[in-house]
C-alpha cells in the first residue's frame, strides 16, 4: 500500500478523460487499496477519483459512513459509474483535494440513479440523494476531466430566493 501523489490545479492532466476499466484483477484491487489510503491521508475527503492520482481509469471511491445523519450507502467502490437519472437541483459548497484552499458553490442534482460495477465487476444500481448524490457527481466529473471550479457559480446565485418568490 502506498499514499499516491495527488494532482493539483493547474495540472493539465486533471482535464484528461478517463478510460473504462475492463479487467477486474489483482492490480485493480491493489490500486483501489492505494487510492483509499490516499483518500484517508487527505483532509476529510468523502471521495476520491482515480484521475486525481494520475491513474486515468473510471474508478471512484466514496465513503459517507462517518456521517450517520446523512442518507448514504456507506463505503463504495464505483467502477465505470454512470448516472442514469437526475432530478432536482440545489446549491452546495464544495472543495477538492486537487484544489487546495478554495471552496465554491456548485449546483448539483439532488436525486440521482447510479449504475456502477464493484471491484469484482458485479453491476449495482443505487438511488442516491442530497450530500451523497452531490459527492458522486463531484467524483464522476473527475472521470470526465472536470473540476468543481469548472462549475462554480457566484455566491449571489441564490436558488432559495427564486424558490420562495416564484
Amino acid at each position, binding site marked *: 500500500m502506498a499514499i499516491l501523489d495527488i494532482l493539483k490545479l493547474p495540472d493539465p492532466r486533471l482535464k484528461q478523460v478517463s478510460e473504462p476499466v475492463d479487467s477486474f484483477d489483482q492490480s485493480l484491487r491493489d490500486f483501489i487499496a492505494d487510492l483509499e489510503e490516499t483518500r484517508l491521508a*487527505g*483532509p*476529510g*475527503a*468523502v*471521495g*476520491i*477519483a482515480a484521475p486525481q492520482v494520475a491513474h486515468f481509469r473510471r474508478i471512484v471511491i466514496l465513503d459517507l459512513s462517518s456521517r450517520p445523519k446523512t442518507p448514504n450507502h456507506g463505503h463504495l467502490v464505483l467502477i465505470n459509474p454512470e448516472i442514469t437519472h437526475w432530478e432536482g437541483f440545489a446549491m*452546495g*459548497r*464544495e*472543495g*477538492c*483535494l486537487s484544489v487546495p*484552499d*478554495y*471552496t465554491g458553490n456548485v449546483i448539483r442534482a439532488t436525486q440521482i440513479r447510479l449504475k456502477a460495477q464493484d471491484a469484482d465487476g458485479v453491476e449495482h444500481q443505487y438511488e442516491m440523494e442530497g*450530500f451523497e448524490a*452531490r*459527492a458522486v457527481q*463531484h*467524483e464522476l466529473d473527475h472521470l470526465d476531466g472536470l473540476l*468543481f471550479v469548472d462549475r462554480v457559480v457566484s*455566491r*449571489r446565485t*441564490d436558488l*432559495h*430566493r427564486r424558490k*420562495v*418568490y416564484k
Partner: protein
Amino acid sequence: MTDTLSDWNLLTLVGADRPGIVSRVTRVLYECGCNLGEASMIRLGGNFTIMLMVSDARPETEILDALAPVAEELGLRLHLDPLSGGLHQHLMPNVQVRVTGADRAGIVADVTEILAEQGFNILELESDVAGERERPVYIMNIQGYSDRTIEALADALVPMAARGVSVDVSPVDVLIG
C-alpha cells in the same frame, strides 16, 4: 491584531458602473508591477464597487499616481490602505442564515446582534432589496462560523418571527472530494 502589516494593500474603487473598468484598472496595476490577490466586485445600487488585494512592488504613492488618470477619466473614487494578513487565510463557514422580510429599518442590526450574542462569526454577508417598488422585500444571506448547534441558533432567532422577519438557519456542509 495577530498579524503585522503585510506586503498587501487594499484597493477600494467606487463609481458609476460601465463596462471596462476592471480591465483598465488591472492593466495599470499590472504595468506597475503589482500582484493581485483576493477580490470582490459587485454592483451596488447601479454603482461599480470593488475591493482588491494589491501587493505593492512599488511605494503606495506611485501606485496612486499611476491610477489617478484612469480614476479621473472613469469617475472613480479610490482608496489604498495597508492591510494586515494575506492570502491563504480562508475560514470555512459551517452555518448559513437566510433572512427575508418586508423591508424596514433595523433588520440587519437585529439579526446580526442576535448572532453576535451567540458568538457567530460572519464570514460572508450579502443583501438585496427585491419585490415590487411599493412593497420592497429585504433579503439577506449570511454564511459564517459558529460553535453552537443549528437548533440553538434558530432558537435565539425566534424573536425575529414576531417582528415579521423570516429567518432560516441551516448547516453549510462543505463537500471535499
